[in-house]
């Protein structure tokens, strides 16, 4: 189908974008790479009165090193993120997970910020953002503010941004030495959303796992951390048995849904199995 009618503006600065959103009211919507939003328009499931296309705002693109964090512009495409040497060096999990997103065509237009703002729990990047504990910088009529990843994903397709705010950039903290990573994604077909995905960051020193962070994809209405598994891994021996015991708690506190692709109990089973694999790989076991 073709979308329903809408007004369209393409501002060239963040301030102009915010002004356009504020002026457009509740039904104004930001258009990023369009890879999630355009299908909604074409299926006539969304009826924005105004589209604010932020594709021309140079300030929102690019990746730079800011000392203790990488700053990734919201409009940086998935392809740019996964091929960037800074990301590969300091945020390897992000590059690895982004490589599993959709297909090359989508990755050349879809954006990191757009993927986070869309807040789909079945998307790969929200779980990764949660595992890293990124900080999201949004601009609104009152100026800029920073939102922690833990507070950003509120509900299914809903972030904590106001309707007149636009995501400008994302700060990914550099974790430093000793951290291994792995993204384990389980899907039935080549290009698909994960039935369940596990983003694992593990800090290992000699024979001990000092700390682990485990983000779960598609295990609820928002991405979630496998808190019980993380607690069990902290200080555990870096052995397969210890990892398996901790991974057995991966589904605690989650609320996966049942649908045509998987029942809730199967998703819980997948979470446990994939956490064991992901943490094992990240810990080098």
């Amino acid at each position: 189908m073709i979308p329903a009618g809408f007004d369209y503006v393409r501002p060239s600065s963040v301030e102009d974008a915010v002004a356009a959103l504020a002026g457009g009211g509740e039904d104004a919507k930001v258009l990023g790479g369009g890879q999630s939003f355009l299908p909604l328009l074409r299926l006539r499931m969304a009826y924005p009165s105004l589209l604010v296309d932020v594709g021309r705002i140079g300030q929102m693109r690019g990746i730079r090193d800011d000392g203790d964090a990488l700053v990734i512009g919201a409009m940086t495409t998935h392809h740019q993120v996964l091929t960037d040497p800074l990301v590969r060096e300091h945020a390897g999990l992000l590059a690895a997970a982004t490589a599993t997103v959709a297909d090359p065509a989508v990755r050349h237009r879809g954006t990191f910020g757009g993927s986070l703002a869309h807040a789909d729990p079945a998307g790969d990047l929200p779980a990764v953002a949660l595992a890293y504990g990124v900080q999201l910088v949004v601009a609104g009529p009152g100026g800029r503010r920073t939102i922690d990843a833990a507070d950003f994903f509120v509900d299914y397709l809903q972030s904590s941004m106001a309707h007149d705010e636009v995501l400008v950039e994302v700060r990914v903290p550099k974790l430093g030495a000793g951290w291994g990573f792995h993204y384990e994604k389980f899907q039935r077909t080549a290009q698909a959303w994960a039935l369940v995905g596990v983003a694992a960051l593990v800090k290992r020193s000699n024979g001990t796992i000092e700390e682990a962070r485990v983000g779960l994809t598609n295990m609820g209405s928002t991405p979630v951390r496998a808190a019980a598994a993380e607690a069990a891994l902290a200080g555990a021996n870096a052995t397969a048995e210890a990892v398996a015991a901790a991974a057995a708690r991966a589904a605690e506190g989650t609320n996966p849904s049942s649908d045509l692709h998987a029942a809730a109990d199967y998703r819980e089973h997948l979470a446990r199995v994939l956490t064991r694999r992901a943490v094992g790989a990240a810990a080098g076991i």
Partner: protein
Amino acid sequence: MQLEHQFTVSVPRDQAWDVLMNVEQIAPCMPGATLDSVDGDEFAGRVKVKVGPIQVTYAGKAHFEVADKEAGRAVISASGRESRGSGTVKATIHTQLHDQGDSTQVDVVTDLDITGRPAQFGRGVMVEVGNKILGQFTNCLEAQIHAGQTAAAAPTEAAPGEAAAEGGAPKLAAVPPPRPSAEAIDLLETAGAPVLKRVLPLVGALLAIFLVWRLVRRRSH
């Protein structure tokens, strides 16, 4: 498919039934719903549901097949259609009130039939969002009940549902017993609507979520 929801309100069963029968009182508790018309025991309304960027508006009708106050049981038949699409929905909603002394447990079992694109998709998020909306509704309902308890207490005893004792399609605009207050009169005029008003939005919301799920899963192909 079948969906089950349950909630508890902190008033005795008869009072819960009567409060639920007061459409004007509980209508604002359901977000995004509008009642357009009441024609005997048939009601027409619209529900606008928003989930993130997704918005769907449904227009539909419903009527009571059963409204048995003594048994605490009501069955509503509802059907609706997307305002800006070709999807349709048909639902039979079975509501059962259980007496728990000072409180009442309400069980809602919905048989849902969806045609059109949403039918391709399974329950998924539908249950979650349905629960969220129902949670919002019941919190509001509880607040309304406590606020209105003093005002509503006296007139609600001989409620309109009595006429439903004969089976089939009950005449819910029953013979009114003498009523002292304006609020009670409202109750009679809008007799029968409450459960509908409560569930029609829920059905609409659930349907909306179906569409969401459909969209999301469609991309898998």
